[in-house]
């Protein structure tokens, strides 16, 4: 009790700060942010790169590794590689045996699709500056690099037109009113309808009135056709399958379960084997059609599982509420259950879409259809390009990577804009 601190005398108290120089005291994180950028940069480097002796060692080691890697890549890309194998075969890689006189059909389809992408993007999300830059760069990379063969000027002009249409489509949606929910629904129905007809429309543009035959779909164009067919067809198959597997009727439930499990049991290559040797007896000799059927059937089984996950994730109160307000089974599915279940399962469905985009390469190996990778094989089979295998495959890998990466980024943005994954 005798250890009490002494009472300070008035002259020992801290002096009040003189007026005019008073400094507002902020919380610590704001205080830190107020320091000059050089101090903050030094702090950031110290904390993220050199926090401790161990951390410093790790940084030095990984910086060395990264340096070697970057040096190796630069050396390969600019000095070692012979990119003639790509530049000499642009048209082969892009469209292969697609008739060159009909190339305008390709450019028109690309322009239509770009317009619709712009429209869709404007409807469902807002276009950040980074996104638009990324989309433009992607389109520039994929089309400009590959489609120069023969009609250099025309392909460039069409490319600019396509990019322009992307923005026209995007800014069209800005003028759409956004306030009332009914208008919003109406917009989404119109845009959704346009997207739904886009695939048949593109096929009509490509094939109608003396255009290309399915056998002339080739190179990167074949990838660009097969993947959407697989995705759209898969979704169309997946929704009834998922509902069937969740059904209470036994015959429906069992057959749907059997379908899903059998299709998921074998690899895609196995199903392409079916397309080549078995479906030729059932459907017909056109391998491209058979491949489309197999891709849709295969994707459908996987997507059905994701949609079923969405159905199961819905609280049972939703089902009961729909019943309580007197909706029929059909109505409650259409209005209450499916919209929510599909919204929940969008991220894995997009993942499956990316997977099927990557898997379109597989048609090369067993069906010997010439998509991008298959045409890269034929490019390196030319006598002067035999040593340039690595260059050709690196190019193919980069093209697929760019598109897949863009798909994943766009889907992330859409998820954020739609608030998917939040409660």
């Amino acid at each position, binding site marked *: 009790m005798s250890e009490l601190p002494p009472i300070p005398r008035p002259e020992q108290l801290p002096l009040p700060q003189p007026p005019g120089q008073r400094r507002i005291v902020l919380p610590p994180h704001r205080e830190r942010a107020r320091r000059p950028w050089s101090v903050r940069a030094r702090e950031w480097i110290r*904390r*993220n*790169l050199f*926090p401790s002796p161990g*951390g410093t060692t*790790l*940084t030095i080691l*990984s*910086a060395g*590794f*990264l340096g070697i890697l970057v040096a190796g890549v630069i050396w390969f890309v600019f000095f070692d590689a012979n990119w003639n194998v790509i530049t000499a075969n642009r048209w082969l890689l892009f469209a292969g045996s697609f008739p060159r006189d009909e190339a305008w059909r390709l450019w028109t389809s690309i322009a239509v699709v770009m317009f619709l992408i712009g429209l869709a993007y404007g409807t469902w999300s807002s276009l950040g500056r980074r996104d638009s830059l990324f989309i433009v760069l992607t389109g520039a990379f994929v089309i400009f690099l590959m489609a120069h063969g023969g009609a250099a000027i025309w392909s460039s002009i069409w490319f600019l037109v396509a990019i322009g249409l992307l923005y026209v489509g995007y800014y069209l949606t800005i003028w759409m009113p956004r306030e009332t929910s009914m208008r919003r629904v109406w917009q989404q129905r119109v845009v959704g309808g346009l997207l739904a007809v886009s695939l048949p429309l593109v096929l009509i543009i490509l094939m109608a009135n003396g255009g290309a035959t399915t056998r002339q779909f080739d190179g990167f164009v074949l990838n660009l056709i097969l993947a959407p067919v697989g995705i759209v067809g898969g979704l169309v198959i997946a929704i009834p399958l998922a509902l069937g597997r969740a059904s209470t*009727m*036994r*015959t*429906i439930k069992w*057959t749907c379960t059997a379908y899903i499990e*059998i299709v998921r*049991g*074998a*690899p*895609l*290559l*196995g199903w392409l*084997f*079916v397309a080549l*040797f*078995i479906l030729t*007896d*059932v459907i017909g000799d056109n391998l491209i059609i058979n491949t489309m059927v197999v891709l849709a059937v295969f994707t459908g089984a996987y997507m059905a599982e994701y949609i079923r996950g969405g159905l199961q994730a819905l609280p049972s109160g939703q089902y009961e509420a729909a019943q309580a307000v007197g909706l029929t089974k059909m109505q409650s599915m259409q209005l209450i259950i499916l919209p929510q279940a599909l919204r929940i399962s969008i991220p894995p469905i997009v993942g499956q879409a*990316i997977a099927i985009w*990557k*898997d379109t*390469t*597989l048609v*090369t*190996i*067993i069906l010997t259809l010439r998509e991008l*990778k298959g045409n890269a094989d034929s490019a390196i089979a030319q006598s002067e390009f035999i*040593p340039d*295998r*690595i260059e050709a*495959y*690196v190019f*193919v*890998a980069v093209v*697929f*990577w760019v598109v*897949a*990466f863009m798909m*994943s980024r766009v889907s992330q943005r859409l998820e954020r804009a739609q608030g998917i994954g939040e409660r």
Partner: protein
Amino acid sequence: MSAQAPASPPSPGGPTGSSTEVPLFYRRGFRNVLQQAIYVAATAIVAWYVYTSLDLREFGFGFLSDPAGFAVGSQWLIDVDGVTNSRLTMYLVGVWASIRAVLVAILLSTIVGVVVGVARLSSNFLVSKMAMLFVEIFRNTPLLVQVVLWYAILLVGAPIIQNVVNVGDFFFLSNRGIAIPWPVPSGGLWGVPDWFVGVWVIALIVAGLFAMRVRAARQERERETGQTHYSNRWAFSIFAGAALISFLLLGVVVSIDRPIIDGTQYAEGMVVKPEFAALVLGLTAYTGAFIAEIVRASIQALPRGQTEAANSIGLSGYQRLSLIILPQALRQMIPSVTNQYLNVNKNSSLAYAVLYDDLFRVATVVQNKAGHALEMFFIIIVTYMLISFAISAVMNVLNARVTSHRL
């Protein structure tokens, strides 16, 4: 209780509705039967159409017992040739080749995935960005292109065998593959045959399992009583003792065979062929990237308090990860990782592209020689399903063990 209850009209088709007032067509039971009947009829029509359009005149599995007439290049521990051995034997060699590739790829991709996934969450800026780069590159590139690219790098990029890269006579790298030292049986102490080494390996596995059992039991005792029971020492002594005793009893001698170069061929040692290496590298990088994302997501799903609690009781970074974070994240990881393992199994069919004779490639060769596409496809799908079933059975056991653990 309520007087109005009997007066309310029965809901049509509802469980309490009296069936006499509802027309037959609107009754739930009738509806069910009708819908299922229509469905079954439609399915049967489709099935009948498919059945009639298939050519089933020669359906049967007898062709599998004929001599193969082709050779497979993926033999290991097995010696078959195309003249005397049947097609079925060749197919089983292919299955064994697939299983080898899948097991190695699963093992390596798990290691890569955990390391990259943890690195992705590192506070070190460079390390985390490099992990992100790895994931984004390998996840978004088609596996087929990755595999053929690895193959091209191993064939074109690696030196020819005359300029082989030789690391201390232990490790050789050329475009004929990678050669590493490998243990081989070399005569026994009491003149036992070479295959006794297999018995010894089995004995070691049994001893290892037993030692793990003892360790777990002693750890349990330690937890219950609070006294130290030296579980690790016990386990190690049991394993070492069993290894020594079984070695002396069986008397097998294993020597490490160094690879040597004989002209333009590797001789002795273990040769990892470029085809196998390309397939496994592709599967490892691709699946590793996916597993890394799973590991990252599972760690991020843990409450932050776990990290803080580990820090506050003074655990080091490695201890925090291995004792607190990873064991808990493991529970969430296992289902998704199992899915990835099943994908590895199915993706191993890409061996076709690099001419590694796995089960799918052998099956297509058999089909090429003998026809019978339908039967071959049936065999393929059953094999893949059996391997998938084995993988998920093992993973389910693991899952049960992990989730039943008390905290």
